[in-house]
């Protein structure tokens, strides 16, 4: 079961990377049309990464890895909230 969950986490990370790359490319190609879309795309990326972190947490990591996993999850959530704050401030 641990292997399956860890694999799921990796798949989620891959999806997050794809979403981020597409959002960045799209914003680079048409910066006017997609104003604000880059931030929203990165928000979606972070949500996928958050899911990956939660899946990894379910594999019961050792105490040393647990601190790292927890820190990464909190970091992602904070960045996500910051992105949203920037969007509402700009919009």
């Amino acid at each position, binding site marked *: 079961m641990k292997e399956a969950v860890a694999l799921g986490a990796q798949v989620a990370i891959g999806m997050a990377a794809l979403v981020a790359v597409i959002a960045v490319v799209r914003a680079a190609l048409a910066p006017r049309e997609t104003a*604000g*879309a880059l931030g*929203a*795309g990165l*928000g*979606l990326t972070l949500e*996928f990464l958050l*899911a990956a972190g939660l899946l990894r947490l379910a594999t019961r990591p050792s105490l040393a890895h647990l601190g790292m996993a*927890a820190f990464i*999850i909190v970091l992602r959530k904070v960045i996500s909230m910051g992105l949203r704050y920037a969007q509402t401030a700009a919009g």
Partner: protein
Amino acid sequence: MEETLRDIVGNVALVVEAIGALIIAVGVLSSFAAYVGSELHIRPRSYESLRLGLGRFLALGLEFQLAADILSTAVSPSWEEIGKLGAIAGIRTVLNYFLAQDLTRAQGEASSPGDDHPDGSGGGTSPMMAALRGPRRNQ
């Protein structure tokens, strides 16, 4: 007697934990499918509504995993286990709190009657929401 009780509760906790992980995995897959459909213009949705849709799955999965944590506190044998459990339960609780806050805020903003749609696609129908979102795509 105590041993069997320990075994039973431990196994139930494991199953509940697996259900939570499964919910999160299903959420990731279905959100990604919705994202691909949106990018290919089959069924366009805003990034924000996709994010909230995934957040809904995460909140539900977290709730199950918290239930598993609570069950595990009943049978934790060692201090190390309890410490780990406390850290995991703490982080899940904090995340659950923020996710719930996100979702209620989104619900409050999109106060049109159609927005109790389970996949969150109803958001963004009110003019105020459209104005808040600004010149984003798919609007």
